[in-house]
């Protein structure tokens, strides 16, 4: 069905970060939001994307924000980085979704929700780790990877999923020994994400996670993804049984997660 070679060739076809985005990221690393905004303003598509994300209701700004410097000062370094990566991911999403009933607009909404909710979760866990904040930006790409990888074999995948309860991730894993998180990690590596982020992304798809702090963050990210994939919009898109997670959450974790959802994320 899918071979490692096919996956590698797909990852190779994903473009590297543009010079402009690299420069923006460099300025953000230096903490220079102003220069970053000026550089970003040369890329109209990027500015349009940034404005559309920042003005989404989930971020809760009352007035329409369109000035580049204003956008970057509101976002701050970490969130600006997250949104720059999200922009790049939006460039590799399909123009027309074929496996899922989805659209660019819905994809961007999903990206925004994930970033926003993940930040709240990390805050509630008292985890101040920029790397972990960044890791969530790459995960929505898995939806696009799936659509691109499976579209040519939909004539077999659809009847297969009618006779057997099998998630897209399980199909992928059984045929190539890779999870969507492995593919995300390959792309993250290509885009010069740090080794910590790459490892964390792989861990989300792994059955076993070693380190304690990581384990907690991995578990909460899995719960967040499960919760997201259970929302009516994502279910209508066909994403409900997309990932294949070990559901080994403790009662305490689940309780905390639900409290968090009720308080902040509902």
């Amino acid at each position, binding site marked *: *069905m899918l*071979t490692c070679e096919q996956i590698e060739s797909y990852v190779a076809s994903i473009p590297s970060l543009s010079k402009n985005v690299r420069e923006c990221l460099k300025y953000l690393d230096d903490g220079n939001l102003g220069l970053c905004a000026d550089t970003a303003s040369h890329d109209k598509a990027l500015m349009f994307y940034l404005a559309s994300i920042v003005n989404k209701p989930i971020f809760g700004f009352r007035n329409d924000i369109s000035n580049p410097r204003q956008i970057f000062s509101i976002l701050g370094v970490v969130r600006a980085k997250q949104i720059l990566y999200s922009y790049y991911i939006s460039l590799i999403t399909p123009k027309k979704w074929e496996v899922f009933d989805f659209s660019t607009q819905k994809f961007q909404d999903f990206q925004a929700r994930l970033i926003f909710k993940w930040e709240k979760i990390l805050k509630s866990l008292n985890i101040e780790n920029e790397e972990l904040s960044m890791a969530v930006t790459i995960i929505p790409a898995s939806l696009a990877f799936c659509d691109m990888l499976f579209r040519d*074999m939909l*004539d*077999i995948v*659809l*009847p*297969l999923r*009618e*006779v*057997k*309860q*099998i*998630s897209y991730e399980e*199909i992928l894993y*059984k*045929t190539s020994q890779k999870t969507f998180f492995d593919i995300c990690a390959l792309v993250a590596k290509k885009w010069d994400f740090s080794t910590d982020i790459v490892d964390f992304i792989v861990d989300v798809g792994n059955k076993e996670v070693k380190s304690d702090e990581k384990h907690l963050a991995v578990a909460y990210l899995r*719960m967040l993804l*499960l*919760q997201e*994939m*259970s*929302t*009516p919009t994502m*279910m*209508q898109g066909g994403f*409900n*049984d997309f*990932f294949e997670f070990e*559901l080994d*959450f403790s*009662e305490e974790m*689940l309780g905390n997660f*639900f409290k968090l959802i009720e308080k902040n994320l509902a």
Partner: protein
Amino acid sequence: MKPIVKNKIAFFHPQGFIDGENVLEIISPYEIEALKPIKPIAVFISLKKIIFFNKKGISIALDYLTQIRDSCGAVIGFCDYDAKKFNLFGEMFSHNIFFSLFETEEVVNLFLGKIEKSEKEVKILIYNELADQKNQQAVELYERGYTPHVAKDLNEAKRGIKEFDYCVVNSYLGSMERNISIFIKNNVIVYTLKSFVDSDISKSFDEIYHENLLRVGFKVFLFDAQGVSFINVHGVNYISRLSNACAEYGATIVIAGLDNNKITKTLKQDLQDSGVLIYRDMKIFFDDKKAIADLIENHSAIRKNIGVTKQLVNVLPYITDATIRTVEVLSNMKAIKKSLQIQFLQIGSHDLSLGACIGMYGDFNGILVLIFDKKLAQQACRILLEDSKSSEADLLDALGEFVYIIGGKIINQLLRQNIKIDITMPRTFDTISNVLSLNKDNKGVQVDLDVSGQLLTLFLTK
């Protein structure tokens, strides 16, 4: 959400959360309407991948499940959960549960689905705090031929867990009053009749499904009348009519458990006159191995030598392409057509082969038989098998699913040519002699394929 229907049991497999907001994406009037024509014997929502559910979500799901139950008498409920979720159901519904709860899909199948081949050897442990539940569960399983061990207390149940193949310790039987249930045992289709059998049998009996079973070559249909209180003239006429229809395919109807208190002498004679065989109970019938073998070997079908038609030849390229494409995609191997002949099914040295067939009906009728080298079957079904340690029964199940996928693809391919067909459930064969016996009298188109040095035989007949 589309349920997966296997042996007339429908399973929904949601993941993550079930609440009032998303439950309509799992089950809604749309799913109910789609399920009604299938006349499922049971509809379950699997909670295997659910980490959270609330009462509102479950209650709405139950409203829709109840509609299915009212419409076709299906057993409804939830399955695949742990002890905590099981207790949660008790609390949510104040221990006033009107639906069924089975801890795994396998337990659902124990009570309602396919019978294990050697059910006497299957070790089942039952324990329930409620004595009436414990007894009811034991009786249901006994009726299906199993001999479960009933634990006296929780400690005994806990101690015994490792010694048993199945442990039914967190299950609850809601209303099991289904009109007709169906399962397959030793290549015999068993329909279980309950209470009073009258003209209503025509409403609850799924004739389309029955005819599909005939199409794929099942030869013996057993009506288990153990739970019947009385059968009247309308019930008898209906079964006699089925018996006549079966004769066309060389199939036989058997009734077990119909003693003289349940039927008049005249009506019993009428049944026998229409070719129905009557046995005192199911056990006696299944112990009569020779009789079963004779019935299965029966070649007195009226439909003989139907062979190959022009229509069949016309659709052959689509069927061959669909098969090749499915095999190639699922096995990652190249399939090459070696030969094509119109002939009786001929199989060379297929000692280690497995077979599967599927019936097609609608704008054209036909049967597609596929015979795989065992190794090829394992490679082709890799994605459908749970793990590498799968048994031969698992492989046969997976092969059935594989052929069903090919069937799904054939439907779509033919639809593009304005040929509308539907497919039957698949039938699998663990020996080639069974495949040969099914197709002994019919010519068909045989296509031999080479799949990376292994043989795959495709046989299409009417």
